[in-house]
């Protein structure tokens, strides 16, 4: 069994949170509130030491006055709380939206639209071996049918009906895979906690 007080603290807090599985109780509430408080404290300290101080306070204290511009932009967000000058908040928001749009739109189009379309298109190179050819065809059919299912501008009649039905099957397979992976992820977290309790805390496993 561990003699490290931090391990003990971690183990006791883990058990407090697990106690919710039986029913809601004051131990669980204490663990939950402590977590929220510690998380807030951690984030404030991290942002101060790793962001505000090195990127704003230190350069300003060294006389780099250019940093007054981001300081002013940041302070303008707080204008929201003063009705008379609340319009000032539009300036930093406009700056952020403009910058984000300029940086993101071309990159998103290139990486998430064109590249993904490229991955769906069947070319002679898709058939370098039988398996990759079959999978390429399945992906193409799956994508087309799923997109047809979400095409609501025309009633799903005629050729659209079986195509949309096939699309539902692909969607269901996708949901099934997501569910399976989600179960695996959640169980992994439980395994991790139990490994911690049985290993570092109780010393029953390596």
């Amino acid at each position, binding site marked *: 069994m561990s003699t490290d007080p931090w391990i003990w603290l971690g183990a006791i807090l883990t058990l407090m949170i697990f106690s919710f599985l039986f029913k809601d109780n004051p131990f669980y509430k204490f663990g939950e509130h402590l977590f929220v408080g510690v998380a807030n404290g951690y984030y404030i300290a991290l942002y101060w030491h790793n962001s505000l101080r090195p990127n704003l306070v230190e350069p300003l204290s060294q006389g780099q006055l250019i940093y007054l511009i981001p300081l002013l932009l940041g302070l303008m967000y707080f204008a929201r709380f003063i009705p008379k000058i609340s319009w000032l908040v539009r300036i930093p928001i406009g700056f952020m939206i403009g910058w984000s749009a300029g940086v993101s739109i071309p990159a*998103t189009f290139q990486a998430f639209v064109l590249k993904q379309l490229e991955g769906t298109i069947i070319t002679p190179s898709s058939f370098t071996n039988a398996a990759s050819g079959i999978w390429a065809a399945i992906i193409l059919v799956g994508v087309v049918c799923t997109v047809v299912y979400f095409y609501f501008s025309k009633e799903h009649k005629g050729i659209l009906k079986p195509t949309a039905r096939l699309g539902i099957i692909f969607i269901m397979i996708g949901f099934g895979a997501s569910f399976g*992976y989600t179960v695996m*992820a959640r169980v992994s977290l439980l395994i991790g906690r139990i490994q911690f309790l049985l290993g570092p805390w109780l010393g029953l496993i390596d």
Partner: protein
Amino acid sequence: MKWFEVISKIDRRIIYLLLTLFVILPLFIPIKIPQNIMPQTQKLFDFVDSIRPDDKAVMLSLDYTPQTAPECHPMALAILKHCFARNIPVVGVSYDPQGPGLAVEAFATVVDDINRQASIKEDSVIYGEDYVYLGWKSGRIAALLEMGESIISVYPRDHFRNAVDSFPIMARVKNYKDIAIAIVLAAAAYPDDWVLYPQSRYGIKVGAGLTAVMAPKYYPFLQTGQFSGMVSGMKGAAEYEHLIFAHGYTKDLGTAETGMSAQSMIHILIIIFIIMGNIGYFFSRRKK
């Protein structure tokens, strides 16, 4: 109460108890369940294995959180062991605020283990020469783009407040041209940003180590070649551990490999519960 009503109304606490038992038992009595290596894990392993020693570096972005550590932490340990065993320089960064603590622990665990076993200086791993951890940075999009020009301009100081330009490793790793692959170990959508910005603009290779929940979303990135490999969930971590063990890069398997026995047992239990629930539902409907 009829039998089919009993099986469809099991108290949730009994289910929790059974789940806990099915997790604990395989940890004491390991059940050998054969591991099939998934192609995406093999691809990432092969990529790292093909990097020439003492040449380009691996950039490891450690962006997972304590709650997802059981999945991503073993991946970090396995990839670090693989890189250090092959003398591949490693540059660590984080963009999730919760990443740094786990990142420091991952580096310390692997480095201490290697250095304990090293008999000569050449076999040991030295901070600043073989690896560096640059720490967490806010404004990650700007940081990711700027690193394409100069890593030192984004990180003048490392996580421990040392001047980065004093490290020998940074003399040869100046920007993305000196990075063979960026491997993002993430519990949120951080790999999106690596594909969107550094890859689109600078063509950097990206690999991913993801929680299992995220994996289905990222499979299309393998199909398009935007990911040069992917390790997903505890299973992926166990596969990577298995691969480095099989290739002689480590002498022991990690926690993911032992956790997978419990994982498999739990899956069997959940399948049984799903079947029981469906049978109960089916017979209840027939009765109505």
